[in-house]
């Protein structure tokens, strides 16, 4: 709930501080509809990754490889279309399949070999990015995608940026999975107590495999809309996105220790970060110093730490109050 107030405050502040009128009397900056749509476009990719991470973090896992997988899938998509001569829909389908396979690799290592998710996905984080760079030898950029494809990332459909519809669809699907189906119950039980879940006869390995495979597919989707938005596929696509996505999930109230959290919280977290990053870029003071990126990083970090502190502060205070004086 706190986050919702933060988001509104943030938005109002940037509306006030980031909206200006240029010499010709046209309103520019944060307060324009174009800018708002831009925020939406930009938040779709990190938003998708954050949606992919929410069920994983609910199971007390983590996936550091989603950003690298975005890069790998973007390259694969470009290669399927450009070098393979496949049609766009077939290339998309293949790319989603590859995403599922990559997620499956994480899933097998984590469930069958019982390796810790942090280490497994740290490995695939390097592996996927390395593969993307090997395929392109670090030099090739796939471009010249047809307009019909770029429509997905650069145009509007029914009044909204096209990819926003995809994002909304995925968000709804993940929300239903986590909040309205037994799968979500399984994720939480595993996150709170993996042993307890096993003793309750829950299919722990299958549930864990599901969240990592799903993360692979959603990362591949993010790769498609990323490529469509920029009109090019490069091996460095999505570098560092995993950290923004994890930040968004945790900011949205999902416990990094697993069990507690929600998909709508994640959406708020994504919005809070997106508004912050874009709003800063609109502020004249920040623009003059050309330091939007740095400021964004600094404020995102501060926001996360403040939110985390605020969430544990009541407990800590009550603990101190109730603690008896040492004898």
């Amino acid at each position, binding site marked *: 709930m706190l986050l919702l107030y933060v988001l509104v405050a943030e938005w109002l502040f940037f509306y006030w501080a980031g909206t200006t009128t240029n010499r010709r009397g046209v309103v520019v900056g944060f307060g324009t509809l174009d800018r708002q749509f831009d925020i939406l476009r930009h938040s779709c990719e990190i938003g998708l990754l954050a949606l992919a991470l929410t069920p994983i973090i609910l199971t007390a896992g983590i996936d550091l490889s989603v950003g690298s997988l975005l890069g790998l899938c973007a390259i694969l998509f470009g290669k399927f279309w450009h070098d393979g001569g496949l049609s766009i829909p077939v290339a998309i389908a293949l790319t989603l399949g590859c995403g599922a396979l990559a997620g499956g690799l994480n899933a097998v290592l984590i469930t069958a070999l019982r390796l810790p998710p942090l280490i497994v996905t740290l490995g695939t984080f390097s592996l996927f990015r390395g593969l993307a760079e090997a395929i392109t030898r670090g030099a090739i950029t796939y471009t010249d995608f047809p307009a019909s494809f770029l429509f997905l990332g650069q145009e509007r459909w029914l009044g909204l940026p096209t990819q926003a519809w995809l994002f909304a669809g995925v968000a709804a699907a993940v929300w239903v999975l986590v909040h*309205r*189906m*037994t*799968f*979500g*119950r*399984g994720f*939480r*039980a595993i996150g*709170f*107590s993996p*042993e*307890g*879940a*096993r*003793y*309750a*006869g*829950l*299919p722990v390995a299958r549930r864990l495999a599901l969240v990592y495979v799903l993360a692979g597919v959603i990362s591949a989707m993010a790769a498609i809309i990323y490529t469509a938005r920029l009109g090019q596929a490069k091996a460095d696509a999505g570098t560092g996105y995993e950290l923004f996505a994890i930040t968004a999930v945790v900011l949205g109230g999902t416990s990094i220790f697993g*069990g*507690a959290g929600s998909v709508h919280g994640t959406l708020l977290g994504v919005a809070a970060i997106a508004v912050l990053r874009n709003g800063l870029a609109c502020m004249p003071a920040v623009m003059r110093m050309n330091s939007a990126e740095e400021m964004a990083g600094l404020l995102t970090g501060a926001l996360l730490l403040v939110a985390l502190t605020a969430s544990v502060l009541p407990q800590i205070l009550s603990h101190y109050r109730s603690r008896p004086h040492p004898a």
Partner: protein
Amino acid sequence: MAAPLLELRELAKSFGGARALRGVDFDLHAGEVHALLGENGAGKSTLIKIVTGAHHPDRGTIRIAGETVVHLTPATAHALGIACIYQQPALFPDLTVTENIALRLDSDPPVRRINWKARRERARGLLARIGADISPEAEVRALSMPEQQLVEIACALGAGARIVIMDEPTASLTQKEQELLFAVVRELRASGVGVIYISHRLEEIFALADRVTVLRDGESVGTNAVSEIDEAALIRMMVGREMTQIYPPGEASPGDLVLALRNLGCAASGVHGVTLDVRAGEVFGLAGLVGAGRTELARILFGLTPADCGEILLNGRPVAPRSPLDAVALGIAYVPEDRRRHGVVLELPIAHNMTMAIHRQVFRGAWLRFGAERLLALEFIRDLAVKCPGPEAPGSSLSGGNQQKVSLARWLATKPRFLILDEPTQGVDVGAKSEIHKIIRRLAKEGLAVLLISSDLPEVLGMSDRIGIMRGGTLTVVLPGNADAHAVMSAALGQKP
């Protein structure tokens, strides 16, 4: 006569509502091996923990070598020469024997050159004193269990221990290793150390101890010289308690055979050659000491550690549960011993916990049905009289007994054919305990086959239609439900009745 090395007077300790010790007297002289005997939960561990400073007694006095010690902490206990050798040695496996001994004995300032040679020599000397043939250079990881215990004893000697406590030191030792350990204990006694020796093996007590004290329900039943008492008398002292609780009467006529085990075993969990039958409507009690393999048997039946030999027949059909998932599908339910870790997910609401094993039945197509879940939870809350604010309350907000009922409800909801209850009333208050007993009896009456694992002797005796006794990983005897406590305890201790 000199003052005893250790003198405990009127020692009492409670945990929450449970009174673990109710005024125990105990003393230990120099050059004596004093055995401590009692059922599981009789208060032995609590007594040891007080002597080692881990727990502080609610009342009573502790005198060490005649001096009254008011505030005993682990550090002061160590300084006063009290050392404890546990069943599972607590050494660092990746360090050498020398390093482990140095870690216990030295408190060097952080920045100083270490004299490895002196440390090695000291380790060698200590090991030689107890006649242990262990290289100080060996990594502890490479040592066997008894060798590690010897290293522990060497540490104790090095610290100048005058009082050495040994908590079931022979539980995992072979005959030959035991004899080696016994020789070391006698060595300690000869050098004037006082040894408190805890064991369930009566023959060891007769072979080794000078005196024996029996604890029962947190009270000392008596202290005798070993030469003046026999095994039968000791067992009588351990079990001789009047039945304080009324148990609901049993069902006279059990029905069809539900579960049959034929020579069942699992090497990994040390269970072997278990053959038993449980009928519908029957409560089959499983007694034995801790570590006898009862929980391990339950884990095999529930698919947590699948069997590797023998047969499980369920309603006459051979089955092989490989996971809890399989077991649930077969109609086997297991209410585990550790309810906080395995029985209930404490952070989740009661209702979620109750439906956790029946997702497929209640939530067809994996769609949650909150209304149906709530009704089901409310029904169980009423049926089992769970005291709770409502089905949305988290499991952690309930008392132990009510958590146990939630765990039970989860498994009753699966409508099982065969129900395993593992210590269902451990850490449960008296009221909830008798309610759980009534529920068990009712379930049996309704035709469920129940396997009741319990270390609570009156409970096993009062609730069971038949009683199986496990010892050393296998079922040794099956007694009728009207067997007496003496017979059950004798069998659990491996004595001829």
